[in-house]
Structure formats: C-alpha cells, structure tokens
C-alpha cells in the first residue's frame, strides 16, 4: 500500500493531467484517439516543440527568452517575402529561404546573447526589447497585411509525406534528437545546468559562464528561425500575428515538462511531453467545440493546477527529507 502511495506521489502533476486529458477526450471527442487526429496533434506540435527547445536551454539557466515569438514572426515574414519574389521556386531558392530564416533567428539570438551573456543586461528587458522589435518589424515590412500562397515545393517542408508521415513531424523529431544530445550529452548542456544550479560554483570551477549564456540565447534564436520555417510551410501564410503568443506556449511547454523556472532542474525530454500536451489539449478542446479564447483560459488553469500540485507535493517531500536529514544528525 505504501509503495503504491509512493509511486503515485512520484508521478509529476503534468503526467496526471496528461492521463486525465487523454481519458476525458477519448470519451468526449469523437475520433480523438484516431491515427489521423494523433498525427494532427503532432503536426501542430512541430513548430512549438522546436521553439520550446531553445526556451528550455534558457530556462535551465534560470532566465527566460521572451523574444522567441517575435523572432519567429519576423523570420517567417521576411522569408515569406523572399519566396514571393519568384514565380517559380527552385531548390536553390528554398535553400536561400532556409538560410534567411535561420540567419534572422541567429541574428536576434546573437543580440540577446551579447547583451545578456556578455554585458549582463537584465534578460527580461533585453528579450522584451527584441520581442517588440520582432513583431514591430514584421508589421512594418508587411504594412500589417498577410502573405500567403507559397510554392508547393517550399510547403513540402512541412506538408510532404515520407513513409506516410508528415514531413514537419519528421523535421521536428530530428531537431528534438539533436537537442536531446546537446542537452544531456555535451559539455555545453552540462554547463547550462551548472550555471542554473549555482552560478558562483560554476564560475569558481572554471566554467565560462558568459560564453555558455551567450550560446544558450543564440541557440534559442536559431530554434525560433527553424520553428518559423516549419510554421510558414505548414500554415502557408505569414504576417505580423503569426507567432503571437508562441513565447507563452513555449514557456508553458517547458514548465509543464517539469523544468524549474529558477534553473538547473529538468530538461528537454520533459519539454517534448509538455509541447505535445499543449497541442493535444488544444486539439481536444477544438473538437468539443470550444473557441480559441476559452482554450487560452483553460490552458492557464491547467498550468496553474499542475504547478500547484507539484509545489504542494515537493513541499511535503522537502519537509520530510529535512526531518530525515535532521534526525540523522545533519
């Protein structure tokens, strides 16, 4: 009995929420667990999980990159404008488009990284600034309009099929695999944890704190660029509102995935779960006929509930372990 209890308590709130969600929608929404719908969910996860990959690195540092939605928007918009220059698209054009998209992402990442990593500006202020720049530039260059109807060859990036699986899912999976490697298997990944856990300790141990922080933001920018490609090719449209709210969804995915906001704890594997969770929930709510606005509200409620559950759980655990340490004679 005790073991069952312990097992139940060791499961994080997000997993419970995920299970509840599946069961609920399996009954409430017809065809929710069908192969087609699951593919739908994964498709809409693709851009989000890539965006959240960069966000995971930054949050593991104990900071936040608010700019990713804006960066995604400007990257997608400029790339869209480039594609619109041509009647017919060649492979070379697509390569250039990819390059533009990633370069814009990296450029913003460099700016964030330089200001925050090397010059130690406050990360909130800097990324709010670059977020505003991203959205503003997108509005400026499009004049507020929407670009749509891109070449099918470009759209293949997201809407093609390989072995029956949508290409955007495949790209996202490849990127996820690389980020998992970076996160868990490289020096860079470990140093991000180190800084998030104890910056002084990291510094005293010879970790290059500035450089590590710099590259975390660069990576986040690059991921925003890659997410922009996937989203642009999938939605077939670009405009100043394309990435609106994406930064919040990315943060939500990271948090639901169990990464601590003060850094040093968690990891990208959880974020993948978190991103799928968000898409799955939105999809289910859509199927039962709830509007976008109410989806937003419910997402907020679910995040709060998950956090509340985990906080209460860990408080109880902490208290117990403190008592244990104490009774051991410290």
């Amino acid at each position: 009995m005790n073991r069952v209890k312990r097992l139940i308590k060791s499961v994080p709130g997000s997993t419970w929420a995920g299970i509840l969600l599946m069961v609920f929608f399996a009954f409430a929404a017809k065809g929710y667990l069908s192969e087609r719908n699951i593919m739908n969910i994964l498709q809409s996860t693709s851009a989000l999980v890539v965006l959240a990959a960069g966000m995971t690195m930054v949050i593991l540092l104990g900071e936040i990159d608010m700019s990713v939605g804006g960066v995604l928007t400007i990257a997608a918009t400029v790339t869209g404008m480039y594609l619109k220059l041509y009647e017919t698209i060649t492979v070379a054009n697509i390569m250039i488009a990819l390059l533009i998209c990633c370069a814009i992402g990296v450029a913003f990442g460099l700016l964030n990284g330089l200001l925050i990593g090397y010059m130690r500006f406050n990360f909130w202020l800097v990324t709010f600034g670059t977020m505003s720049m991203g959205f503003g530039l997108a509005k400026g260059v499009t004049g507020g309009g929407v670009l749509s109807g891109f070449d099918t060859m470009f759209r293949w990036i997201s809407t093609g099929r390989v072995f029956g699986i949508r290409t955007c899912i495949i790209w996202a999976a490849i990127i996820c695999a690389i980020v998992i490697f970076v996160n868990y298997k490289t020096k860079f990944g470990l140093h991000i944890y180190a800084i998030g856990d104890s910056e002084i300790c990291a510094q005293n141990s010879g970790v290059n704190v500035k450089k590590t922080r710099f590259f975390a933001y660069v990576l986040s920018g690059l991921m925003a660029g890659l997410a922009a490609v996937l989203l642009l090719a999938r939605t077939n449209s670009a405009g100043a509102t394309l990435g609106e709210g994406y930064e919040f969804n990315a943060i939500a995915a990271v948090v639901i995935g169990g990464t601590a906001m003060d850094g040093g704890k968690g990891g990208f594997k959880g974020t993948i779960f978190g991103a799928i969770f968000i898409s799955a929930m939105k999809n289910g709510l859509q199927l039962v006929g709830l509007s976008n606005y109410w989806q937003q509200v419910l997402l907020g409620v679910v995040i709060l509930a998950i956090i509340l559950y985990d906080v209460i759980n860990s408080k109880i655990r902490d208290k117990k372990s403190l008592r244990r340490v104490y009774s051991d004679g410290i």
Partner: protein
Amino acid sequence: MEETRDLLELKNLSKFFPGVVAVDDVSFTVRSGEVHVLIGENGAGKSTLVKMIAGINPIDKGEMYLEGDHFVPDDVVDAQTHGINMVHQELSMMSNRTVAQNIFIGREPMKGGLIKSLDIKKMNEESQKMLNELGVKIDASSKTSDLSIAMQQMVELVKATSSQNKILILDEPTSSLTAPEIKSLFAIVRKLKKSGVGIIYISHRMNEMFELGDRITVMRDGKYVGTREVKNTNEEEIISMMIGRNIGTLFDRTYNECGEVLLETKELTGLRFKNVSIKVHSGEIVGMAGLVGAGRTEVAKAIFGYDPIDSGRIIKSGREIKLNGHSPRKAIDLGISYLPEDRKQEGLFLDFTISDNIIPAVLGRIFPSGIVNQKKQKEIAEEYVKKMSVATTDSGKIVGSLSGGNQQKVALAKWLLTQAEVFIFDEPTRGIDIGAKAEIYALMDELVGNGAGILMISSEMNEVCGLSDRIYAMHDGVVSGELFRGIDDFSEDNVLTIMLGSGGNHE
C-alpha cells in the same frame, strides 16, 4: 615524510577594495607536505588572500612564485591548471547534479571523434576511484542534494584534489562538521600532506591548528603579523598575535544583578530544534554556542515569529505569545527584536540610505498617520548615527558603500530604535574589524545595564565565553548544556566540548 621544500612564495601581496585595503603587503611561503594554518579574526583578510592565490580575486600588487617560477594566476582555471585548488568556506555545490558531475565540472572527460559527447561513464568511474582512494564512502552517481552537509564537504575536497595538485587551500572546512566528521576530514588532509601537497588551512579553532598544523601564520587587519612553527608556540602567543591587545579589555563587562525573566521558551520544537527551553533575564547577556546547523538561528527565528513552531510555548514577560511563524511585526511590537546573522541578505537594504535602513521597523510607531515626515526621519536617523558612532555623519549615505563594521552598526541602530526589551543578536560581530567589535560589545553591555536582555548567538568562542553571563550550548537541535559564569568552567575548550555534544558537566 619526504623532504620539504618551498612550494609557493608570496611576496608583498596587496588587494584593494573601495575604501579598504583588504590585504596589505603580505609575504610568506608554503612548503610542500606541510599544513600551513592561516589564522586571524574575521575580516583579517584571510579569505581575500587565499582567493588571490586561487585566481578568484585579481592581485592588485605583489608577486607570487610557484616552485621558484614567477606565477600570477589569470583566473581560476589558470590557477587550477597550475595545481592550485581551493575548497570554499560556504559549500558551493550544484545540488541537482551528481557527485561525479560536481567533481568534474569545468574539465569534463569527452569521448567521440568529430562530435564529442560527455563521457559520463568515465566521469563516474574516475570519481569513484578518487572517492575510494581518499576513503570517502559515497556513490559517485548519487545526487548531491541527497548527501549530508559533511559528505558534500568531502566531495568538495575530492573535487579540489582531482586535478594535479600542488597547493590546496581549505577555507574553514570544519565549520559545519561534527567531531567524527572532522576526524575523517583530518585523515584525508594527512593523506594529501604525505603525498607532498602544500596545504593552506584557514581555521578558527585552536585545537585544530595544533593537532593538524605544521606552521601557523597570523594575519590582522589585512596585514601579516608573523609565522610560527607549531612546536615552538602556544595558544597564548597566537591569540595575542591575532588580537593585538589584551582580551580582558575587549570583553569589559559590568555585571548586573539579574532581574525578572523577560523571555522564556518551554519545550519549543520546530523543524530543526527539539524541546528547547531557555530563559533570558533582564540585565543579562545569554550566549548561545553551537556549530553551524545546530539549530540556534532557527530557534531565534521561531521566537521572532519568522518560522513556525510545531509545539512548545514562548513566554514574554509572563505572558504567552503566539506568533507561530506569522508575524515578526507582532514580535517587534511585543518588544522582541532580532538582528539576523547575514546582514547583507537579511539585515539591511544595501541600496538604501542609512536613514531608510534605520527607520523601517518603527515606521508605523513614529508616523501613525502613515505619512512619512522626511525631516523627522532624518533627525531620528542622525541621532542614532551619532549614538552608534557610524563613521559618517551623513544619514543619506548608501549603506552598501559602508564598511562591514559600520553596516552592522546601522543594522543594530534599527533595532535600538524599536526600544525592545529582548534583543536577539545573531552573530553580531561577524566579519567586522576589532574596533567596531569593541564598540558593539560596549553597546551590548550598556543595553543590559539599562535592563534589557540579550540572547547572543555566536560562533566565535572567545566572544561567547568573554561576554556572556550564562551560556547555552546547542548541539543537533537540542540544548546540550547550560553554564553559569562564576560557577562553571567558561573556558573555550569546555564550552566546545559541551556544544559538540560529547557530554557536559551541567545538564
């Protein structure tokens, strides 16, 4: 022991911080295979000096020679690659990482050709080997936060010895350890010493330095005072070198008749303490001795209404008070004040002016309407600045720019202004110079002379023994003994024995 030779030579090292000379023209040598104890009062510049050697603080003036070659470390990594490692006073571990990752942070082993990845297996194996070699029984793959403080300390030591080691600096490594843990730490230090490492050992404990040390270097006020061979010196000589004056005058007290009981706890039990029953009378200074982590601060915070209690009672002037972790405000209004141990984090608003730091605890009392009269505030602040002889007359000065001693005076002024009856002072003289210490001691004497009661938590044994009317010793969350001046042996050794829980002569 192998033949010893000079390993590290320091020549005229100096370090300047804004407004202070933290290290002033210090020269001495460290030999291979010796434990070189560095001692001095808090604020004497020991930590700053060793941080210069370890490449953390840049050297402003002076030269360093490592094995005869001129060497001034650029940074921590540079010092480490030249074999200079340091274990810091405060634990600085990454608590969410494994032991192995902590040991190898900054120089992780990699594998693979073009795309390199962390060699976690090698990291674990090598860490385990190092732990085993030094006789530390820890699993290298376990999470650091699961270890006790003592074990984490051992890991830090292993971490510092893991790279090629010539000089090892230990900054008060025993400050949070119990007696048996200290023994195993000493065993490790002796092992390292045998292998020819030169060890700089900062400590406050006399018995430690005489047990472990080969030579003792004393620092005072940032200056080098002298170096002695352990076998040619004794405690008295070292103490007088450290203090530079007679202890008797430093702890000058007028002892008062004790009055009524001002504060009493009965069987107070909380998260880190159990059944604590103590009394503070009017007119007495009650010392509270114990190791870091013994639960002293936790008791104080519970009395002050900052932390919750599980059971037991707190009685102020005959009336039971129920704060239970809810309200320091209420405690202040009832005449209890608490000077926290960490003035920078808990005691002061470092970016505020002196005046804004002195007033907050009594704002509501002085300005009942809720509207702050700037002029009146300034007058009050200036009165207290004068009273406390803070080194500036300008109450508009930013507190963070003052020296440690003056900061502490401002922190004290805040509580004097509350006109409390019971003052709980947690490490009231930590990290301040001897002059400011003497002034604070005199102030405490004056306070109890006027009928207040003081509960003083202190880790400085000479302070506890020199100043208190009565001493409670705490060990592992319980009061392990009570000593009365004039009745019991107030020597540091005796108090230390009782607070280490190895039996007391008064229960």
